[in-house]
């Protein structure tokens, strides 16, 4: 497969380079395949798979609402709450970082460079690892998940927001300063109105991502629907896994739809 991918686009270039590329890609694939465990098909696997499908297509509807305690709706609400709070924290915290990283707002390249470095450092940090660290700090539960999402979302929001600030029209600000406005008033009446719609749109987009992330935080014990899911998976209760997966898919689809509509109206 690798050969067919590469041989077509480089047809017209010199043959030596083409062969070097093909051989290096082949080498990568030989290396990758050499480390794979051989697929072992057990005798029971067809039975297991059929029981999985039976369970997934006959969800455990009783789990949707259970007045006594843990149920699907409560888990989903928890997940949404984690995503909302994480996004709000990130939206507030990203503002100073993005002003620091924007090259037309902070004085000197040193500040904007360091701001950009902090943001990209946060961006490559996996949020699950962040959640593990916060669990160690504040104990397992939804609160650790909120903090992990809140800190982790700063990276992406700050980057998008600082780019927005860099493409800003500074004319109105200069005009306001010329009429004698103080710097805070100048920013409040000239900068904020220009960036508010796109800022809100980024925040809502990040909220969509956070809803997805919040569903997996529970796997490591940071609250939300992930915890009952991982329990159901470990005891192979496929009916319950089915209903939880269905709940997650429905929630994500609904949230995506609503936030897509809001973002359309914002921009």
């Amino acid at each position, binding site marked *: 497969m690798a050969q067919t991918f590469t041989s077509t686009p480089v047809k017209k270039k010199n043959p030596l380079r083409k062969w070097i590329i093909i051989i290096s890609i082949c080498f990568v*694939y030989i290396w990758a395949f050499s480390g794979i465990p051989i697929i072992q098909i057990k005798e029971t696997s067809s039975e297991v798979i059929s029981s999985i499908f039976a369970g997934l297509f006959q969800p455990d509807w009783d789990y949707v609402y259970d007045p006594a305690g843990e149920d699907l709706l409560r888990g989903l609400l928890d997940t949404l709450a984690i995503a909302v709070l994480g996004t709000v924290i990130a939206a507030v915290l990203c503002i100073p970082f993005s002003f620091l990283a924007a090259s037309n707002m902070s004085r000197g390249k040193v500040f904007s460079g360091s701001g950009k470095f902090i943001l990209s450092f946060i961006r490559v940090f996996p949020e699950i690892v962040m959640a593990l660290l916060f669990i160690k700090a*504040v104990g397992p539960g939804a609160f650790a998940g909120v903090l992990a999402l809140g800190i982790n979302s700063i990276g992406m929001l700050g980057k998008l927001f600082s780019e927005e600030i860099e493409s800003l029209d500074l004319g109105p600000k200069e005009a306001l300063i010329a009429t004698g406005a103080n710097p805070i008033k100048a920013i409040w009446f000239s900068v904020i109105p220009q960036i508010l719609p796109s800022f809100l749109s980024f925040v809502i987009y990040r909220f969509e991502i956070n809803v997805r992330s919040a569903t997996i935080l529970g796997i490591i014990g940071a609250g939300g629907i992930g915890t009952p899911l991982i329990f159901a998976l470990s005891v192979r209760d496929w009916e319950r896994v089915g209903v939880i997966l269905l709940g997650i898919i429905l929630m994500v689809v609904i949230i995506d739809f609503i936030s897509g509509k809001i973002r359309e109206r914002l921009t």
Partner: protein
Amino acid sequence: MKTIEAPIQKKEIRIPSNRLKHSFTILLLISIIWLSGWKVEFSITSLINGLPNMVDLLVELFPPDLSYINNVTQPMLETIRMAVLGTTFGAIISIPIALCSARNVAILPIISIPSRFLLNLVRTIPDLLLAAFFVAVFGIGALPGIFALTIFSVGIIAKLTYEAIENIDPGPLEAMTAVGANKIKWITYGVIPQVLSQFMSFVLYTFEVNVRAAAVLGLVGAGGIGLYYERTLGFFEYDKTSTIILFTLIVVLIIDYLSTKIRERLI
């Protein structure tokens, strides 16, 4: 004069209704945030009580125990291997799905609508959930990780590719239809040459995403370096944890850099 008057008039009419709407929106937002805070038991006191723990943790993370790199080199290579294979299988599977989803290739809605529905369904499930599911089916190891990454990659590559296919130049396609090419030739000579370089670029981008995803899949037992996060954190060996984090960040940055360079040359 007219151009100046018009916007002012418009503004005066709109303000009263907008203000009511805005205050309602803000009220709704505040109540959502407040409810979420109540739901996850957000408390400043527990954050403040947790802060010393967090500072202790940060102090213990430094300095990293660099000798531990020897122990985690093999899992790191396994992580990259999983990402390579997952991306490749995902790319192969996403070719037919992308072709079926593109409205200008699959003209019949009976083909494009189900395949789009399938794609949207796949994209709502987070990668770690897929991995947890496959671990429950196939057992612990790199294999469930590869399967999870494969399905996760299909969601990204097929979506981006079908959007690219829908934007191709219809001229060559019409010419081929006019000379009587059958559907397979039509796709091979009309569609594929136009989207191949973009497709390769999407595959590389997905590879970047997959390396990051593969680094945490081990947390649910799906192979790779993620397993070592839990192991070192569980034994309170924080200097080793920070080594893993640093190592992952460096590998991710190198792969991002390389793949960005290749992608720049592709387009």
